């Protein structure tokens, strides 16, 4: 009888200790949540409440976190569109101003009769070229802005990457031959299904090939498609002058130009657009280059299942 009582007493004490411990734990949790909420209220939406798998407060905390995550992403989205707008403004002010100022210079010279005859014709010709360049630039700029702000709509469907690439290359072969480029195209016979928007993909390949023709200064283009475990790789390489290693990481940045040439050649948007397009496919684009030996662009897409 006595031992029974003793055991009961011990059990009761244990139970009380357990409950006190539990209570303390919950109190701690609540004071922690209070702290985090105060921090969030002060504007720190990155703060999270961490909970254990079996905590009573789990669902509450997850919900609070979700609210914070949602409002944070909204806030950031807003900020981003603001920044995109700002970037657009700076682009307009810098990169439109340059050709525009020069265009005005030529036209003013013609207008004020500073030049005559053949020279005048040449001035008008140059002015026309500049106007054309400006037109292209503005077109590209809007395309990029559309991509950057996520307004571009893609129509993704699973199709055979090899087939589409073959079709694109068929159009390019004539162009390459006309501009005396050697080419080496290696597209496997089997089907590589990839989820993609064929128009966007065509733009990607066109942009890269265009880029090689205009900027590489080489005489040969290699296009190769290879399969890895989960991904398909498209490699476009040339034997041109290459890109210096300090410039390499920047080439996909908007308006970055290796040679700063704001003349008729490029506008610094091609590769930026290309990268945005590849990203939209959940792909990656990387570049390897060695000076005087050539450049290699590698696009990699996840394989469709």
């Amino acid at each position, binding site marked *: 009888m006595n031992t029974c009582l003793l055991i009961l007493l011990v059990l009761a004490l244990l139970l009380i200790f357990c409950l006190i411990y539990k209570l303390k734990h919950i109190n701690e949790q609540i004071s922690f949540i209070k702290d985090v909420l105060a921090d969030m209220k002060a504007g720190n939406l990155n703060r999270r409440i961490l909970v254990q798998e079996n905590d009573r407060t789990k669902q509450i905390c997850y919900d609070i976190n979700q609210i914070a995550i949602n409002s944070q992403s909204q806030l950031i989205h807003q900020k981003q569109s603001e920044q995109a707008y700002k970037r657009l403004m700076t682009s307009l002010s810098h990169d439109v101003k340059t050709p525009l100022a020069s265009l005005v210079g030529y036209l003013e010279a013609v207008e004020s009769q500073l030049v005559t005859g053949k020279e005048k014709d040449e001035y008008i010709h140059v002015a026309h070229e500049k106007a054309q360049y400006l037109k292209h630039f503005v077109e590209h700029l809007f395309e990029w802005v559309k991509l950057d702000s996520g307004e571009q709509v893609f129509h993704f469907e699973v199709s055979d990457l090899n087939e589409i690439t073959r079709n694109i290359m068929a159009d390019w072969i004539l162009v390459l031959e006309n501009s005396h480029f050697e080419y080496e195209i290696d597209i496997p016979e089997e089907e590589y299904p990839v989820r993609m928007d064929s128009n966007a993909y065509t733009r990607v390949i066109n942009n890269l090939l265009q880029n090689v023709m205009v900027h590489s200064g080489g005489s040969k283009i290699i296009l190769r498609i290879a399969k890895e475990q989960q991904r398909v790789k498209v490699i476009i390489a040339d034997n041109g002058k290459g890109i210096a290693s300090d410039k390499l990481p*920047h080439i996909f940045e908007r308006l970055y130009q290796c040679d700063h040439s*704001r003349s008729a050649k490029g506008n610094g948007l091609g590769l930026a657009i290309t990268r945005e397009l590849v990203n939209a496919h959940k792909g990656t684009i990387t570049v390897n280059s060695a000076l005087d030996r050539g450049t290699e662009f590698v696009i990699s897409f996840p394989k469709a299942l």
Partner: protein
Amino acid sequence: MNDTVIKTKRLTKKYGTQTVVNKVGLHVQKGRIYGLLGRNGAGKTTIMKMILGLTPITSGSAEVFGREIGGNAKRIYSRIGAIIETPGFYPNLTGTENLEIFARLRGTAFPNAVKNALEVVGLPYKDKKTFAHYSLGMKQRLGIANAILHDPELLILDEPTNGLDPIGIAEVREFIKALSVEHGKTILISSHILSEISVLADDIGIIDQGVLLEESSMRELEKRNGKYILLQVSDIPKTILILERSFHVKDYSVQDEQTVRIYDTTLNMGEVNKALVMEEITVIRSGICNDTLEDYFKKITGGEGIA
């Protein structure tokens, strides 16, 4: 609200008589990527370890979220994700199991945190492969997944692209950038590769032999970067016409109503000025800027360069 997330004051670490970190004062701002650039052995890892309280500080102080790590460790650590050196995991467990252990230790911020983190770094969820069979790149990715598992505000990443292949490096960089831009995280990243820091960081600190040589924002540095001639004139279109026709300058850009940058620094400015004056254009200012980031780093580190 205090916007400096990490602040160190005269942070010093000595091993015996050797001073590894010498009076470093870092300031990592909220929502920005701070790149710590320095050669291997410059003291980057030691600084990060001291900030995290993983190694005793010889003198000075390191504050994270306005508090020193120590007393209130639990609450501060839960707001930080970190990889220091090459991260280790249990070799007999799969990546998912490893992360589940850390998720249970720390607690999670939302359901399916492990799956989510693995997806972000591009590793398969519930894979059968144990950590012992992981490649270096996969290990590094798992380390990053562990660092972001609890959705922390501050990430401290020590050479996160170490051991990755070029595609992996590009992916990780992209995703670090996205963490900062799209999620507003504060990131302290160290690297010995100049291009990596210059492509990622908003702010930069240059460490050489334990001394913080320079701390400034990338934008500030970029202003000093570049080889060009700055020309401030009264009439831009006319100036450009002269530059194009008489001097065959093709490489230039118009900055504002009065300023033009010429990227061909071999141009004879005396001749240009003369020609401009002849056409009754007032030259307000003309100057040459002759510096690249790399030159700049060479100058700072005493001629040896970093990249």
